[in-house]
């Protein structure tokens, strides 16, 4: 066990060295893709906690992200930019006078998302399966509709422009590593076992003394917390947000990540967040004219992704990893030639 701890710490140090090297040497296009990878890792993990580990099929992620993105943007934007944005109607007061640093803004974004999740979850989490899916989808749409209509708070449909580009590789990879750490600790704690028990069989879990309400709301809130932080990072990476960004398309993308990675696998989510995000950039050529004589078909890339989602669900229902996880023992076992009984590979 102690040996594994050392490996983990080494891996984290290696990660930080890599981030340092990447941050200083790579060009801004590749950095942006890596940033997106890390942000989608955070978002995927947060959705996997709710959907994969607790078995609550929630489709409200875009709403939580919107809360996070708007909170962070409103708190970090310089006063002059705020005035430029709110030319139709003045911004409501405290917000027009304060500018916060990035970290407290992000934290508040996460907390606000979690609070919204509590308000939503308390009544809705009694529902099951597809009813829950449609109710959470509905709530995330309501959040979007509210944001479109509160001109003085969110600038309505015009959205916010000129959000400071604070997000860099340190922020995103740091947050991603922190999220992985929290998720692993959470899943291996008594709470995590309770979540999984609820996923496997609610009635059995309840009869074993697991409080359904408490654990469902908790899982929902923690998921929303990280979704809010992910949204905040995304907003400050892209620099401009508007309510249309947070339609259910956003939720579908994250759903694709967790389905491909395996519902209920942290490792799978991390891997597939990178695969999907890089593939989305790599396949951009599909939107361009491929053959000189054939006109370009913008949107073809998304067709490929929707087919991918279908293929994974139909033929590889467990995704890349199923519910398996990475561990150092398996990792080294894979390379050693020792027989299985002495810790060799399967």
């Amino acid at each position: 066990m102690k040996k594994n701890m050392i490996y983990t710490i080494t891996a984290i140090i290696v990660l930080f060295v890599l981030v340092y090297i990447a941050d200083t040497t790579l060009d801004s296009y590749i950095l942006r893709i890596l940033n997106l990878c890390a942000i989608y890792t955070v978002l995927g993990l947060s959705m996997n906690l709710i959907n994969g580990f607790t078995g609550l099929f929630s489709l409200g992620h875009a709403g939580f992200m919107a809360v996070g993105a708007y909170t962070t943007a409103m708190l970090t934007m310089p006063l002059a930019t705020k005035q430029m944005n709110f030319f139709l109607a003045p911004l409501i007061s405290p917000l027009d006078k304060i500018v916060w640093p990035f970290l407290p803004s992000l934290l508040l974004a996460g907390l606000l998302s979690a609070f919204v999740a509590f308000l939503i979850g308390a009544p809705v989490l009694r529902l099951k399966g597809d009813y829950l899916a449609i109710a959470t989808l509905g709530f995330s749409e309501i959040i979007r509709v509210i944001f479109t209509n509160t001109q003085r708070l969110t600038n309505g449909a015009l959205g916010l422009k000129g959000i400071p580009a604070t997000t860099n590789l340190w922020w995103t990879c740091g947050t991603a590593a922190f999220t992985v750490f929290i998720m692993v600790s959470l899943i291996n704690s008594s709470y995590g076992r309770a979540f999984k028990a609820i996923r496997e069989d609610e009635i059995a879990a309840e009869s074993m003394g697991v409080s359904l309400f408490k654990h469902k709301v908790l899982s929902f809130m923690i998921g929303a917390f990280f979704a809010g932080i992910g949204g905040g990072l995304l907003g400050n990476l892209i620099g401009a947000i508007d309510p249309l960004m947070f339609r259910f398309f956003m939720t579908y993308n994250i759903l694709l990540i967790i389905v491909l990675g395996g519902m209920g696998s942290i490792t799978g989510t991390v891997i597939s967040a990178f695969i999907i995000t890089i593939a989305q950039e790599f396949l951009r050529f599909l939107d361009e004219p491929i053959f000189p004589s054939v006109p370009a078909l913008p949107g073809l890339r998304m067709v490929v992704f929707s087919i991918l989602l279908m293929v994974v669900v139909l033929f590889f229902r467990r995704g890349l990893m199923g519910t398996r996880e990475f561990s150092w023992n398996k990792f080294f076992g894979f390379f050693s030639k020792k027989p299985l009984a002495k810790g060799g590979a399967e």
Partner: protein
Amino acid sequence: MTLELFLQHLANGISLGSLYALVAIGYTMVYGILRLINFAHGDIFMMAVYFAFFGVITFGMPWYVSFVVAIALTGVLGITVETLAYRPIREAPRISILISSIGASYLLENLAIVIYGGRPKTFPQVPIFTDMVQIGNIHIQLLTFVIPVVTVALLFALMYLINMTKSGMAMRAVSKDIETARIMGIDVDRTISFTFGIGSLLAAVGGIMWGLKFPSILPLMGVMPGIKCFIAAVIGGIGNITGAVIGGFILGIGEILLVAFLPKLSGYRDAFAFILLIMILLFRPTGIMGEKISEKV
């Protein structure tokens, strides 16, 4: 608000409600038989509008031919979606089927964007539906009367189909218990395909009338009506066809009257359906016409 204005809003509400009802029937039938929210239903609705559009504009068919062809094609599309996306994983956990239906919906939307282009198109106007008539002081489109009449006629036809014919009996049997129905010699796969086909036909009729009423058509136009019609089905009691119609009317009339009486809230029009949904789920989860089902351990 004058009486005339109120009647005008009410007529609009009834015709919108009839459209919701037609699409909601498709949801409720599929849910009744497979216990599945067919997320792709809204996109099948959208496809019908485009089929009719291309029939008239590109192929120059008269509107009645084009509409019939579009309705038939949409039925085929519904059956295709069922065969490709739902049949292979019918035994899988329900979450997988739900994800598959989200995937099918996503695929249809993206295909529509690629094939039809993202820019809005204008649905052809058919004079005998879109002309205005004047009754007293009310100016109203003829379509406003045509839609409820078509809906009610189709509803009666559907009721006859389900309650009086052999196929209808098979559908009812499959929705009660798939395994037992199979033992009784019912071709379950065919019955489920048939259900999807009927649901898609009704969605196609709804879609085409929607196109006549709101002529600006887009690849993503099916998403919102799709979700709202599912909500209508839940309000009425999912699995119950009369309930779906009642739910559709409540939603349509409620939405129009909300905007009419409280114009300030018109931006929140789309939120109304969701608030209604959450209220229903919290206070009467089985809907207006639904039966209480207790969970077995």
